[in-house]
């Protein structure tokens, strides 16, 4: 699903690489936590998967494709097989809940009939049935994140990338979001989630990948947030 081979990435005008010689593999259907302090390289890791950045050296394979050799015009098609969720939700404030989800399908040219059918389905799945016509501003943070997850999942992606999806939510709400992500994972979708939320990582007992100053320092199945010696 995802394979990193000796990946190093340095941003322009920076001395220290954001990622240094990272190699790992994530299998289909896995649920992986990506942990590490700010500046440890988590975001770079995710940006490489989304092909927002390219590696300096080393290879990144996503869904069987070598992203370094993927031409620009094929990138959109690759991204249609990924779903992305962010800490700040990134909803369109002037569109309703249903329109926000439909937008993701409209802009990839899906026919109207498909959109009409799939949008209510996915809203039902994330627990927002009956709130189709609300504006994002009228929803709680947790509900907004559910809209974002619905938008990311409406295309039934193979892989869901979540960058601190609970970063703006209270613990109670976060648990609800995690349940939802877990449910999505159970449908066969691989989930990679960067997080700072210790409680969540410790409770879920999933695979944990820890980065520190750009290096891979821990890769533990059924792990916890940090070593607690």
């Amino acid at each position, binding site marked *: 699903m995802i394979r990193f081979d000796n990946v190093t990435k340095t941003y322009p005008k920076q001395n220290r690489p954001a990622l240094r010689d990272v190699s790992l593999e994530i299998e289909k259907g896995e649920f992986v936590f990506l942990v590490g302090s700010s500046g440890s390289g988590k975001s770079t890791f995710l940006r490489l998967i*989304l092909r927002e950045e390219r590696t300096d050296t080393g290879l990144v394979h996503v869904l069987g494709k070598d992203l370094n050799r993927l031409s*620009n*015009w094929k*990138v*959109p*098609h*690759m*991204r*249609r*097989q*990924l779903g*992305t969720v962010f800490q700040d939700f*990134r909803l*369109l404030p002037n569109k309703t809940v249903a329109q926000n989800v439909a*937008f*993701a399908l*409209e*802009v*990839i*040219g*899906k*026919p*109207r009939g498909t*959109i009409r059918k799939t949008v209510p389905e996915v809203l039902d799945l994330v627990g927002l049935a009956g709130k189709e016509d609300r504006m994002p501003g009228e929803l709680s943070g947790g509900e907004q994140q559910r809209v974002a997850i619905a*938008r*990311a999942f409406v*295309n039934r992606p193979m892989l869901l990338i979540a960058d601190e999806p609970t970063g703006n939510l209270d613990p109670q709400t976060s648990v609800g979001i995690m349940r939802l992500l877990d449910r999505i994972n159970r449908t066969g979708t691989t989930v990679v989630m960067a997080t700072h939320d210790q409680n969540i990582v410790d409770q879920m007992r999933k695979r944990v990948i820890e980065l520190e100053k750009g290096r891979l320092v821990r890769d533990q199945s059924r792990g916890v947030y940090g070593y607690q010696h």
Partner: protein
Amino acid sequence: MRLQFFLSEIGVGLRRNLTMTFAVIISVALSLALAGGALLANKQVDSMKGYWYDKVQVTVYMCNKSDATSTPSCAKGAVTDDQKKAILADLKKLPIVEKVYFETAEGAYKNYEQQFKNSPMAASITPDQMQENYRVKLKDPTKFTVIASAFQGRPGVQSVEDQRAVLKNLFSLLGGMTKAAYVVLAFMLTVAMLLIINTVRVSAFSRRRETGIMRLVGASSFYIQMPFIMEAAFAGLVGAAVACVMLLGGRYFMIDAGLKLQDKIPLVSFLGWDSVVQVLPLVLLIGFLMPATAAFIALRRYLRV
């Protein structure tokens, strides 16, 4: 869905940037009106050249009675019939002469009267002040000097006049105006292009949230860029339509009403409506393509995948 989606995106973009949209419309309208105007001025000069150069005549004026005192070349008095015959024979002998018309003093007076009927000049001239003349059509209108050197100073000839010399000033004036229009046009087009590029950038920036999401969910560059390109093209098309109205109005007010050039300069055959209408599709096409291209260039650097 797609079309509806595009249209609503375009509408939102145009409304959000209303002032910039107006700036684009106005600058496109002005530059295209200027472009069309310059094009038409060129056509006008060409058509006038065609009109006059076909009919151009070197005129050989004969001496009349009153010239005997006022013009040195006619000191021997009015032209005689023998002299006239000899001049006509010699003119016809020249290989470059295509045709020779004879105009009597009365005929010349009538033409003059007709041409300047609205002018006080007509009243001050009497028929006996007009010269009899030969109007000569040349095979090659530029060979005026051959006639001039052959007949200037010949007994009975008052003067030889190149009709084209009269028009040369008019043509150089029109030519100069056209060139000036092209220079202004170049600046206007640059301003329009820069404005469009800037407008598109502002538009793309104000919608970076949307375009960011579009990139994330895997929209192709076509889907992401097309609303911006169509936005610019639409504004350009409106500008081009305004330019068309300006061209049609310009012809009406300069030639038919307002300045009434047709009445003031009856000698000139001005461009008809058909010539103006012929230019309009070109104006519309440029008005559509230029902003679309400018937008495309602006987005290439701004909206990468």
